[in-house]
């Protein structure tokens, strides 16, 4: 294919670098510097998609972020499939593969298109609310077909092969947009020494200066642009970010910038290089220089390929050396767009006419048009485009001075391109993200940024100042102001002067009236991607959807991937007119981030796969891995769950671990338990306030179990705290609760009881903790220590001692979560693995068996010990647990939780209470979570008594055991309750005490 629309010279493309690409299965050529859109236009590709609802042929309208139609599937491989890439923003690279995202079975003839024509009239906005209701069950079927039509591109079916990262930026001045205003602002701010970020969504900075035609101080604008960029690049306090879209403006001047680092290079990013990057920017001051979007005019069949924005036509000609047609009709409400006709003519193609909607428009621009011999029809408008797959003619009619009626007889101008300009809408999106409402300005004929609490300035077209000189001057002055506000001494940079033809007043016109009512006129599209027409908006308001939000939601206007950049203002104007309101009264919908879509991967950053969440390891982790442990996630910790031997099932491994521990000795890595060092003379008093039990008299050298409650009286954590010294305690918490407990203690210390002299520090990671449990625990330990007297009467249950274990100084706590003779050995974590391995060296003869969390759970359940978070759920107080022994009511200070557990509902006698449960068939292990009832045959909803919280097969008892909550359970010992299971079976169980083994606690006291 030849590039039939490519001009022989000009543009900012590199003709020495031809590039080959594919679209819709065809191979084309373009040049480096092309966008995918410009390359397609250069090749004369008119139809690039089909519309979503009516399946009409569509072409490229715009040249930037506002393009609604040219939205493609990119990707040469499955893993690099990228849906919905806007061709106007995609730089061309060699080997690019793209597909249209709509138009099944093909672009030029599609079945849906035919259906669209026929059914189109059946599909007003909201049609789906009004039908598909009968019969009730049929919606599922209807929906399947509706869903078939949904979506644009498709998701890849393979995981992404690229990576994305984040960069946290802090800056004094962030300037959004590197057009004339942004560049001038950057110069002023940069020269002050302030840290400056200048971000622009395009590959090249310069904004409208790139589109050619401007002279600054008598020189081509490109020269000033180059000098400016060179200067900015020299400052090490300036960061220039091209290909970087500022997508979201969040609170306190936090903005996100989506930088596309490699999308212009190829299908996937080079190794070790992120494809895209999210800059998370905290800016002291922000200068918005985001420019404006040209508004197309709304008229009949305005979606035909060949209908384009005037400024886009100029961009294609000047920047890409592409003239997207041969015969142009330009319709405009303003002088500025005349430039497009002149560009077209300068490119050597025919301008059929300029149709100016203003009566008697006369000034420098009209003068120039006359000088060039271009026909200008003032007080006229194009009411309708003609053609099938491309514009073939423009129907031009007279227009009443107020723009409300088409007058007189029509003439048809033969053309293949119909460019329109309805003026410019400031790109106020970012200024609205933080909740600021934009304000309609009748002078600007657009919304401008409203009041804000952010440290934000707006320069140039975004503030409604469209003249190049105004933009440069305002940019320079606001750049200096931003730097000054950020604490620097800054002067506005001197800026060059542009030669501009004076412009006369534009006309506020949005929808060009047709002779027919809008409901009967050829479709006048407002939002192309969602197929919303002027008639649809009028229908919505007629039906009573009067709020602009209702109009938007009912018609889907603005819901496309362009988020209504092209059509929203026109739509609001049409709604306002239909409601007989001003645009200001109608207002606008709320702009939300993102300005343009952002890749999920870029937002996720490196927090994925292996780096999704930290994995916390103990000092003995490598040993566990080496010995085949299966791991359980507890919080962020990886804890050994059980250690299966080759060929063992999980249950077999658990049985072996349980028996070995009770028969000889087992070992658990308990390092993950939270540990808090508490020092200070009021430590004891503090403990008395945060635990439910008594701490006043715990002697040095002793340990005690404690329950912690919230102010509502419900248990939230538990653990053993040891008295290391009169003013020194070591608290342990649950693994998952560690951070929360410390913060809880600090909260009370800092805000309620700052007078208490106590310091708390986490030492969780400092100590490696290994628990040896079982009848041979003492024997084993005695082989590894010669300075701790292990005599049963000297080193008693709930004592702790300091000494040396395996040559390492240790604190040994004789505490037990298994009910066995048990020692918790704590050594500085660097030596944990050494001691652990020494224990195994000496433990071999006792068959020292490592056990994981599951065996720990079984062994403690045999003893009826609770696990906070498993046997409790935030709705259980100590009395519910049958742990009144752990509540000391008569402490002088009303400890946390005491009042809460006395509330009316908390002292009911029929609360759910923790009990033991024995299935009548000892071989059945109740599932944890099973719900008890008194009568399994009652109708649903059944009256439930409570659920099983813990349930295991106990190899030691050779039967199943369980704990659970039962309503009034403490008074129902011996009763039978029923557990109707998911498989239909009903399991009978007897309520019993929670202690299944060694009720007198003799084993731990040996």
């Amino acid at each position, binding site marked *: 294919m030849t590039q039939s629309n490519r001009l022989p010279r000009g543009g900012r493309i590199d003709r020495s670098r031809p590039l080959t690409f594919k679209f819709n299965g065809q191979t084309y050529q373009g040049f480096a510097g092309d966008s995918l859109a410009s390359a397609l236009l250069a090749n004369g590709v008119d139809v690039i998609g089909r519309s979503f609802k009516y399946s009409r042929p569509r072409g490229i309208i715009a040249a930037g972020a506002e393009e609604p139609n040219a939205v493609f599937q990119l990707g040469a491989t499955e893993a690099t499939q990228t849906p919905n890439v806007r061709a106007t923003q995609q730089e061309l690279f060699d080997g690019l593969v793209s597909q249209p995202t709509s138009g099944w079975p093909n672009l030029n003839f599609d079945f849906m298109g035919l259906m669209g024509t026929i059914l189109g009239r059946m599909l007003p906005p909201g049609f789906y609310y009004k039908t598909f209701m009968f019969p009730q069950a049929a919606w599922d079927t209807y929906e399947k077909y509706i869903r078939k039509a949904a979506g644009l591109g498709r998701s890849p079916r393979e995981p992404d092969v690229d990576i994305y990262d984040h960069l946290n930026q802090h800056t004094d001045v962030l300037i959004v947009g590197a057009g004339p205003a942004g560049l001038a602002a950057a110069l002023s701010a940069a020269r002050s020494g302030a840290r400056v970020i200048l971000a622009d969504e395009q590959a090249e900075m310069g904004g409208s200066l790139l589109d050619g035609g401007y002279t600054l101080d008598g020189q081509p604008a490109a020269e000033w642009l180059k000098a400016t960029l060179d200067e900015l690049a020299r400052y090490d306090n300036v960061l220039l970010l091209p290909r970087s879209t500022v997508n979201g403006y969040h609170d306190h001047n936090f903005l996100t910038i989506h930088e596309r680092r490699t999308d212009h290079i190829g299908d996937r990013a080079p190794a070790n290089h992120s494809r895209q990057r999210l800059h998370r920017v905290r800016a002291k001051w922000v200068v918005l220089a985001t420019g404006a979007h040209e508004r197309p005019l709304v008229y009949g069949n305005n979606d035909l390929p060949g209908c384009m924005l005037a400024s886009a036509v100029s961009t294609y000609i000047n920047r890409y050396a592409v003239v997207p047609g041969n015969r142009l009709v330009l319709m405009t409400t303003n002088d500025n767009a005349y430039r497009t006709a002149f560009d077209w003519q300068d490119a050597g193609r025919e301008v059929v006419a300029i149709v100016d909607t203003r009566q008697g428009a006369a000034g420098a621009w009209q003068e120039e048009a006359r000088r060039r011999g271009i026909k200008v029809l003032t007080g006229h408008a194009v009411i309708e485009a003609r053609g099938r797959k491309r514009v073939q003619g423009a129907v031009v009619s007279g227009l009443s001075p107020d723009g409300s009626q088409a007058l007189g007889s029509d003439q048809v101008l033969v053309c293949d391109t119909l460019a329109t300009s309805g003026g410019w809408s400031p790109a106020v999106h970012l200024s609205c993200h933080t909740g600021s409402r934009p304000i309609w300005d009748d002078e600007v004929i657009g919304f401008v940024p409203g009041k804000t609490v952010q440290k934000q300035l707006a320069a140039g077209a975004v503030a409604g100042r469209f003249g190049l000189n105004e933009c440069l001057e305002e940019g320079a002055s606001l750049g200096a102001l931003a730097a000054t506000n950020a604490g620097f001494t800054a002067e506005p940079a001197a800026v060059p002067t542009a030669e501009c033809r004076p412009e006369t007043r534009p006309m506020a016109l949005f929808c060009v009236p047709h002779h027919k009512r809008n409901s009967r006129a050829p479709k006048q599209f407002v939002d192309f991607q969602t197929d919303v027409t002027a008639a649809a908006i009028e229908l919505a308001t007629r039906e009573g959807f009067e709020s602009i939000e209702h109009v938007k939601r009912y018609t889907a206007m603005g819901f496309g991937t362009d988020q209504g950049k092209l059509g929203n203002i026109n739509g609001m104007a049409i709604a306002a007119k239909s409601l007989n309101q001003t645009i200001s009264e109608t207002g606008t919908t709320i702009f939300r981030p993102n300005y343009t879509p952002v890749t999920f991967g870029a937002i996720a950053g490196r927090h994925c796969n292996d780096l999704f969440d930290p994995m916390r390891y103990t000092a003995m982790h490598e040993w566990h891995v080496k010995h085949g442990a299966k791991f359980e996630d507890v919080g962020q910790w990886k804890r050994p769950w059980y250690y299966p031997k080759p060929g063992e099932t999980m249950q077999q491994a658990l049985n072996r671990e349980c028996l070995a521990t009770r028969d000889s000795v087992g070992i658990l890595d308990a390092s993950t338990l939270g540990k808090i060092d508490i020092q200070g003379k009021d430590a004891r008093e503090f403990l008395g306030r945060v635990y439910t039990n008594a701490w006043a008299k715990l002697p040095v050298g002793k340990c005690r179990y404690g329950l912690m409650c919230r102010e509502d009286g419900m248990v939230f954590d538990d653990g053993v705290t040891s008295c290391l010294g009169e003013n020194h305690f070591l608290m342990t918490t649950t693994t998952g609760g560690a951070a929360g407990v410390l913060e809880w203690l600090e*909260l009370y210390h800092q805000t309620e009881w700052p007078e208490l002299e106590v310091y708390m520090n986490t030492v969780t990671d400092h100590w490696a903790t290994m628990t040896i449990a079982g009848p041979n625990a003492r024997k084993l330990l005695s082989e590894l220590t010669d300075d701790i007297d292990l005599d049963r009467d000297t080193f008693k249950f709930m004592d702790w001692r300091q000494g040396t274990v395996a040559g390492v100084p240790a604190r040994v706590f004789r505490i037990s979560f298994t009910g066995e003779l048990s020692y918790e050995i704590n050594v500085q974590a660097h030596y944990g693995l050494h001691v652990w391995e020494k224990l195994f060296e000496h433990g071999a003869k006792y068959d020292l068996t490592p056990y994981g969390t599951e065996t720990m759970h079984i062994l403690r359940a045999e003893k009826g010990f609770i696990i906070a978070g498993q046997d409790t759920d935030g709705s259980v107080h100590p009395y519910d647990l049958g742990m009144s022994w752990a509540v000391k009511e008569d402490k002088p200070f009303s400890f946390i939780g005491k*009042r809460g557990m006395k509330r009316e509902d908390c002292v009911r006698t029929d609360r759910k209470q923790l009990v033991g449960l024995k299935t009548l068939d000892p071989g059945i292990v109740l599932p944890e979570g099973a719900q008890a009832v008194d009568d399994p045959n009652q109708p649903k909803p059944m009256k439930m008594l409570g659920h099983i919280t813990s349930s295991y097969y106990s190899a030691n008892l050779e039967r199943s055991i369980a704990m659970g909550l039962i309503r009034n359970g403490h008074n129902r010992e011996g009763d039978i309750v029923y557990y109707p299971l998911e498989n239909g079976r009903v399991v009978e169980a007897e309520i019993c005490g929670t202690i299944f083994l060694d009720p007198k606690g003799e084993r731990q006291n040996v």
Partner: protein
Amino acid sequence: MFYIYCPYCGEHREEEEFHAKGQAHLARPKDPDACSDEEWGNFLYFRPNPRGLYHELWVHAIGCRKFFNIARDTQTYEILETYRIGESPKLSQSTDQQQS
């Protein structure tokens, strides 16, 4: 994302370092046992939840681990002042009366 001045660190830090901990200046009753259920429930749960000026407790969790207070507008999210535990806010009434 908020940018919060930590009165202990003496500089602004990113919100990611902080946790919001609810309403500020909620003193635990001196004698909880003397409270009625209603009084205790009010202390535990009932809050003015204003639209506009709000005094709230935050903790610089990943930082200096200190709790402190923020006066913030819950509509605009503007932080009007931050101050240490034990200090009194300068602002006690909304200057910009925001109503529903």
